[in-house]
Each structure stands twice: as structure tokens, then as C-alpha cells.
């Protein structure tokens, strides 16, 4: 059946609420309003205000409350409107959720799932459009998921809720309206493996989230030019599926990493370093990165477009890597 990314996330939440009475959703305007991106529309009516909990605008505290409820045995799903807003909850995510198990000598795990919208493309300017998943991937103790397909939007939440530790899910704002085919019986998906979305022999285009579809479009253009790009969807940014990355690079001998996040100190730099360390003698060209421009994301359409990777810039970067 055809379903939108937004509907897929909603179906996943409904599944979870029906499956496990300990699951509940909390966040700003998730209830009566139906969610900032309309993901939870209709759920308040269906499941009631106890399980679809509207919170005050207090990111640190409702995130921390989710952590506390998780410690008390619940399975909260916290929704943060935008990853820019999650910075207000950074203390609770980093200093508590990610830390507690280790700091307590293994006594207190935190089974919480935190969903947030990420990325640019909707002209929301510099306080709603950034990509902080790479930052979060820096932190030991959390898993960082970036579903790029409808099937992953549907299935990753299930898997995340089965995890005994904190899982952060980054939903790209440009994907909510995207539609895709999904089985009626779609269920959990693994979150440990990257996925090859398109096979190719000439270079590996390594990406995730909102950039995946741009990379696929670029790969189609490259194919017309006789360049066979392999598109690898990382799916999970922490832990990275090193084996899949290295396997692809050893096959194609060239790598281009495409990431909406800023380049300096970003996840693309980390992936590049890992490739260099493990695949140095397999490489026929330096590892290339195409990342977000190092500016706060602007409002104006042409400026916003220019601040993140686009199919044309991906094609150009790929051609530089293969030298034709």
C-alpha cells in the first residue's frame, strides 16, 4: 500500500501504543493540536490525554520527565518539535539519558525514545532547519537513527522501543510528505545495518536521511553520464555500520559522503577518517565530502537551497571524485 512518511511514523506510534500499555507520547502540541508536523493527528482523541500528553514549552523538563518515567518502568516516546529546540534539552539527553547507565555502574538503564524533526528545505530559517544528528552521534550511550524511507519510518520506532537504552530518531522535515510503498504487515526493521539503495561500481555515495533521495536522483543523472554510483544509506549514525561502509568503498575505490550537517567536525569527517584508516590502500581518490554550507540556514529559497547538498551539486562532486 502507498503511505506517506508522516503516516508511517503515525502508524508506528499507533502500533506501539496498542502493543504496550507502558508506551506513551509526550511533547509540545502532540495532543489537541496533532503535532507540529501533524504526525500525531487524531491520536489524542483515540488514546486520550494520559497517553498522548501535551506538555508545557519546557524541553529540558519534559525530556527529563520522559527519562524519569523510563526509569520508573514506562516506555515514553518524547517528541521534540525540532532538533534546534532539542538544544534546550541537551543537558537531560547528554548528562542524564546517555550517562546514567555507565555512571551508576550498570544499575539504571534508560529505555527512552526521543523523536525530533531535523533538516532544511521548508524555508523555516536558522532556528528550525539545522541538522544536529551528527552532534548527537558524538555521544556514547545513545543510538542515533535517521530513517530516510517510509519503511524505516514505519519500522525503526518499533525496534527503538525494544532497545533498553536511549534512542534518538531524526525525521527529516522534507520527508514527511514523501510517499512510498509499504507492506500491509510492515513491522520492525533492524537498526544495525546500513542499506545499499542503489548498486554501482564507480564510487560510493554515502549518505542518510533527507539527502538520500537527492543522492538517488544524482545517481540516476550520473548513470546517464556513464558513471555507476553506489548509494549507501547509513540509516543509523551511532553506531555506524563500519563494515558496510568499508565493503562498499573496497568495491568502488572511491567515496563521496553527503551530509546536510556542517562539514567542520561533522559526521562526514568521522566517516572519512574511518575510511582512511581502514581502506587507505583501496582508495583511488581522496575521500570527498559534500556538506551543508557553514552558515546558519537562511530563509530565502535560493539561499536555503544553496546551503545544503542538492542533486546538481552531488553530481558535480561525484564527477570530481571519479575525474570525468
Amino acid at each position, binding site marked *: 500500500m502507498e503511505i506517506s512518511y508522516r503516516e508511517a511514523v503515525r502508524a508506528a506510534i499507533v502500533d506501539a501504543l496498542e502493543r504496550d500499555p507502558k508506551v506513551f507520547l509526550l511533547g509540545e502540541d502532540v495532543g489537541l493540536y496533532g503535532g507540529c508536523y501533524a504526525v500525531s493527528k487524531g491520536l489524542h482523541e483515540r488514546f486520550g490525554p494520559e497517553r498522548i500528553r501535551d506538555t508545557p514549552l519546557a524541553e529540558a523538563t519534559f525530556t527529563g520527565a520522559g527519562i524519569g518515567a523510563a526509569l520508573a518502568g514506562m516506555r515514553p516516546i518524547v517528541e521534540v518539535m525540532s532538533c534546534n529546540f532539542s538544544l534546550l534539552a541537551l543537558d*537531560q539527553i547528554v*548528562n542524564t539519558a546517555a550517562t546514567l547507565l555507565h555512571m551508576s555502574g550498570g544499575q539504571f538503564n534508560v529505555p527512552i525514545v526521543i523523536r525530533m524533526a531535523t533538516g532544511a528545505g521548508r524555508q523555516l530559517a536558522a532556528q528550525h532547519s539545522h541538522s544536529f544528528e551528527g552532534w548527537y552521534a558524538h555521544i556514547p550511550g545513545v543510538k542515533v537513527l535517521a530513517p530516510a524511507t517510509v519503511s524505516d519510518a514505519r519500522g525503526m520506532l518499533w525496534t527503538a522501543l525494544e532497545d533498553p537504552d536511549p534512542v534518538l530518531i531524526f525525521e527529516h522535515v522534507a520527508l514527511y510528505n514523501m510517499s512510498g510503498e509499504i507492506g500491509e504487515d510492515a513491522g520492525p526493521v533492524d537498526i544495525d545495518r546500513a542499506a545499499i539503495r542503489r548498486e554501482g561500481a564507480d564510487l560510493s555515495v554515502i549518505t542518510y536521511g533527507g539527502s538520500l533521495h537527492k543522492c538517488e536522483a544524482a545517481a540516476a543523472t550520473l548513470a546517464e553520464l556513464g558513471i555507476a554510483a553506489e548509494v549507501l544509506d547509513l540509516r543509523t549514525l551511532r553506531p555506524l555500520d563500519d563494515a558496510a561502509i568499508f565493503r562498499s568503498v573496497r568495491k568502488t575505490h572511491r567515496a563521496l559522503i553527503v551530509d546536510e550537517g556542517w562539514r567542520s567536525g561533522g559526521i562526514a569527517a568521522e566517516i572519512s577518517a574511518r575510511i582512511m584508516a581502514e581502506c587507505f590502500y583501496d582508495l583511488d581518490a581522496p575521500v570527498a565530502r559534500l556538506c551543508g554550507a557553514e552558515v546558519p540556514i537562511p530563509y530565502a529559497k535560493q539561499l536555503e537551497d544553496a546551503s545544503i547538498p542538492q542533486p546538481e551539486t552531488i553530481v558535480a562532486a561525484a564527477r570530481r571524485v571519479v575525474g570525468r
Partner: protein
Amino acid sequence: MTEPSASLLHQMLRIRRFEEASAEQYSAGKIRGFLHLYIGQEAVAVGMIRELRDIDAIVSTYREHGHALARGISARSIMAEMFGKLEGCARGRGGSMHLFDAATRFYGGNAIVAGGLPLAVGLALGDQMQGRPSVTACIFGDGAAAEGMFHESLNLAALWRLPVLFACENNLYAMGTALARSHAQTDLSARARSYGLPAESVDGMDVLAVNRATAAACERIRAGGGPEFLEFRTYRFRAHSMFDPELYRDKAEVEQWKRRDPIPALELLLRERGLLDDAALAALEAEVAAEVADAVAFAEAGTLEPVAELTRFVHSEGR
């Protein structure tokens, strides 16, 4: 009506002597890092935590040895934790500021000022959603009242009528910054009331007053009355931490507060009531001294976690 008892004195002495031993062990180089002593504030931990039940939860701060001892975490495992030993209550991974104990629902020593408040709100929410008649005691200092999470958490707990006892240990200094130098409104109870919480300021140097106020608050919370706020006016006799030269407060002020030391005060009351004599006090002191000496010996004899285990518990095991 809370009656004075030798048991209250015993518990306060346990904390006092344990902390004195901690300072010694710090000077001896056995304890490192930051060490924040609870000396002077014992009446709060003892008077308050006595009213908590096994099903209740505690969230605390980095000055939490007294809370941990009063809650029933063994002196041995606390001292071993500070020695960085595997036998410590967090396997030596937390140290003085991060004591944890699942068995007594002691959710830590949090070193982020006000960082524990949202956690307490969530624990209370989780317990309430599962129908547990628990109270979460959330202990923090006056410094926390300046943080945004203090206001957010009081608001949310009151909004959702959660069973949280917000217990503010107002020792007048946020590290070295006096209350009046960092708060426009120094009446902390007034702030809590502004969020709709019943709030009371209590003499934190009087263990009986602390106990009475806590008992009454817990009873109302357990009856479904929603969160409450207690401000315990107390004082730390020692420096903020072992690194603190105490440039920010007068020695005369410290001496004045020491005259209100809760331990001699209770001792005097017990003697007046004929509930304590020299022999009984000596016996109590001997018992406490033995417990503390045993804790130090236990910590000394403890083992160090092998470095090979460094990366354990970043994620849950067995998955």
C-alpha cells in the same frame, strides 16, 4: 507528633562521623575529585528520609552522602565508591557526587544543578501511571532555584498533580554565591507557591521540625494532593568542597550557625527528657565509630575494576 529519640541522634552521628572520615581520607589521598561534605545539614537528611517508604524514590545532588546513608545505602559501599573501588555503590564509576542504588530507589547524586528535578517529575509520573502509591523525594539546593529547570519542573509537577516532594536544602550559598547575590526573590517558598504548590519553610537545623513537616507533606501527597515544596533552612559548616578557601563568607557567620548544630541540640533535648546519658552517648559514638572504621577498612580492601571493563555499561548488556 514526632518524638525525640536516640535513633535520630544515632543517624545524625553516623553522617557526621562518616563525613569527618571522608575528609580524612581525602587528605590522605584515598578519595579524589570533588568532595562535598554534608556536615551541618544532617538534620535534613535524617528528619526527612525517615518518612520515606521502600516504594518511594529519591533524587539527590552532589552533596548526597548524608541522603544515601539515611536511605540505607551501606557506609561500606559509599566509602568504597569514593575510593573508586568495584565494591562501591556505582562500581567506582560515579565517586562522591554520583552515588546510586537500585535496591533503595536512590537515583543518584546529580552534579548538574537542578538536573535532577525533571528526573524526579518523570519518576513520579511513571509511578503514578503504573498505579504505584509512591512519593519521589527530590532534593536540591538553593542554587537550583536559579535554574530554568526548577521553574519548569515545579510547574509541570503541579500541572499534572504528581507525587513529588520538592525538598530544597537552602544552605544560603550556591557554591560561593550567597542567596541574596543571585536571587531577586530570596523567599524560595514564595516561588513554589506561585506555581500552586503548598510550600513551607522549615528550620533545617531542627531534626524534629524537619520530620514533622515531611511527615505532613508526605501524607498529603500520598492522599493524592499533588506535589509539595519544603524549604529546609540549613547551613554547611565546611567549605563547599575540599578546594574551597571560603573567601565569600565570614568566619563569624559560620561560628554563629555552628551554635545551632543539630546534633548537640538533640543531645541536650534527649538528656533533658532523660532519654540519654553519658554512657548511652558513648555507646552510640562507639557504634558509629566502628561502622565508619569498618567502612574505611572495607573500601581500603576493595578491588579495582579491571581497565578491560572500561566500556561496559555504555549500553545495556545482554542485547
